Structure formats: structure tokens, C-alpha cells
């Protein structure tokens, strides 16, 4: 996970592809609000290239978080969370990346933490 983040930060597709499983799949949800490819990306090369392209065009601060009880990455841009990535790891390789870009679905990542009371 750590390696995935470092590789993404370096923006080097080959480095990134090395931590991806050969059957890796990446799905992106833009909800029609944020431009996103409707089809999944498959294979380490395509997935790595896509990630590096996006980060090169619009750099982000990447932090590691636990997302839905699994490992995940959070991308911050201009002080806001613009993407949350949930990652499935199988034998030290990333097999699935689910990328949530839809701002409506990221709202709780951009609001102050609710206290125990509101939950």
C-alpha cells in the first residue's frame, strides 16, 4: 500500500505497474459530474499509465487511509478531498482499485468529522 502511494507520487508508470497484479482492474465513478472513463481499466500497464497521466495533469496530495475496512488512498487537491480510492490487495499486489470521484459521494470526506452524537 505504502509502495502504491510512493509509486503514484513518483508518477513513474513502470514503478507503479510493479505493485499491480497482472489482472488488476480499475473502476472509476464520476457520476456524470466529473469526467471519468465509463469502462474499467485492465492490466498493470493501462492502470498505471492512467493513474500517472491523471496525477501529472492535476497533481494531488495523497494520503493512506482505511476505506471500508480495506486499504485506501485519499487524494487532496486545493484543500479538498477530490478522490477516494479503495484498494483490494491480493498477495502483496493490487488486484482492484475503485476510484470514487463523484463529489456527491465524497461529501462526508469534506465535512468536519461528526461527533459521536450525530452518528
Amino acid at each position, binding site marked *: 500500500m505504502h509502495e502504491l502511494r510512493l509509486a503514484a507520487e513518483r508518477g513513474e508508470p513502470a514503478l507503479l505497474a510493479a505493485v499491480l*497484479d497482472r*489482472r488488476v482492474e480499475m*473502476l*472509476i*465513478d*464520476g*457520476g*456524470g459530474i466529473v469526467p*471519468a*472513463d*465509463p469502462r*474499467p481499466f485492465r492490466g498493470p500497464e493501462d492502470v498505471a499509465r492512467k493513474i500517472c497521466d491523471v496525477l501529472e495533469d492535476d497533481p494531488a496530495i495523497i494520503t493512506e*487511509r*482505511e*476505506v*471500508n*475496512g*480495506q486499504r*485506501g488512498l485519499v487524494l487532496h487537491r486545493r484543500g479538498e478531498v477530490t478522490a*477516494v480510492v*479503495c484498494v*483490494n490487495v*491480493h*498477495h502483496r*499486489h493490487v488486484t*482492484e482499485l*475503485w*476510484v*470514487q470521484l463523484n463529489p*456527491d*459521494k*465524497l*461529501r*462526508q*470526506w469534506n465535512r468536519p*468529522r461528526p461527533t459521536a*452524537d450525530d*452518528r
Partner: protein
Amino acid sequence: MATFTATRPRLFGIAYRMLGSVAEAEDIVQETWVRWQGTDRTVVENPPAFLATITTRLAMNLAQSAHARHETYIGPWLPDPIDTSADPELGAERGEALEFAVLLLLEKLTPAERAAYVLREAFDYPYLLIADIVQSSEPAARKLVSRARKHLAAERRRPAPAPEHRRLLDAFLTAAQSGDIVGLEQLFAEDVVSYSDGGGVKLAARIPVAGRSRVAKFVAAFSSHFWTDVDLRWVEANGLPSIELSRDGVAFTILTVTASESGIDRLLWLMNPSKIRPMATPGAL
């Protein structure tokens, strides 16, 4: 009020798992609160179960219409991600029903199946209570849960397509011949099993070997001698690409694998001479 507050995380957990949406789950919890306000609580025997019933039924209703909405959604629909490091409470109950892969599969089930699965798997509700919540009988509730489990298992184990299957077998041969344990493990599903059918004749493991690392070690252990001077030939066995191993022109093993999306899940070593004979030189065995 205290009862509701204490039950609230649970209610949110149920609705979120059923719908994959934070906003919808929050609306449902809110609506549950409103209904709880209008309830004569002196007649409610078990408030947490009562609240879970309201929430689940509301979520089932919404799930019905959510399905149609997801169909017209632009691009792939994914659940709202949840920050479980900041909100450990949500993941504290059983985690599996929270994973993205599971939420995506749940979305394909009927609302009743989803409800029954979530209540059972994530929260360990007794079947009798689940039956009451989804308004059916206890056997029917059991059936809902088992059907949901089956759907999930089947989806997670879609068989690998033929070219992928062939590629896996090919990669397996390379790793097996070089005794590459790590390489082997990467090709295997977690619960891979290796079966050898030696018919009691050949030096075959009589007991199946199971588990990723054990099978990898098992295969790697005989890498040195087993493959020496062996000719490999692609054949088809049971409609699956397989490998015939022969030495000095004599076939001695047919290797077939089955594979799903999670990798090779079965290795079948057919070493029984009587079963190989048709493909081998007559009399040579």
C-alpha cells in the same frame, strides 16, 4: 433518546451496507428516528430490534428504487467510500459486508436477499429475527441468506476465460519447473487444492494438498527431478487446455487446472496409467 443514540451506528451500518450510500443511509436513520418518536414505546419489547426492523424495511423500499436509479447512472456506479480509520465503529462489526467488492455484488441481489445477508453476516442476527424483519418465515429467511451467499460466491468465482486459463497454466509450468515458490503462490487462489490421481500405482500424493503456500511448496518440492527430460504437449481434457507430460515418448501425467478470477483453484494431476493409456504408447506403461 438514549436507546436511539446507542442503536444509531448499527442502524446506519445496516442501511449503508444495503444501499452503499451514505446520504441515503443517513436519510433512513433520520426517518427511523421520526417513526420512533411517533411510537408508543411502552409496548415495544426490544427497542434495538424494533429500530433495526424499521431501518431495514425502509432500506428495502429504497433499494427497490435505487436499482433503477443506478441503471440510469452515468458510468460505473460505486458505493460511497467510508473512512473506517476515522469511524472504526462501522467496521467493528463484521467487516466483510463492508468491503467494496461485496457491496458491489450485494447491489445485484433482491432487497430481501440483501437485507437478510447483511443482518446475518454483518450483525449476526438470529434467523427468527431476520424472518420477522423481512416478513417471512424462518426457513425462508435461511434460504434468503444462503441464496445471497451463493450469488456472492459465484460472482467472486467467475471462471477465468480460456486464453487466461491457458496463460495461467503456462505461467504455472514455468514457475513449477524452476521451483519458484513466490511465483507459484501468485498464480494460486487462496484455497487452491492439488489432487493427484495415481490410481495407487504411481508415486502420487494420495491426500489432496490444500492452501496457497502449501501447494506452492508441494509443487516446488518436486521441481528438480519431476520435470527433467520431460516433453510437454498441450492437450484438451474435459474441455480445458491441459498439459501432457511425457518422457522418452511415453506419457505419464496429464495436468489440468481449473481457474477463476482469483487464480488457479485446482490442480489435477492425472497419473493413473489406466487413464492415460489411450494417449500413450500402448504397452509402454
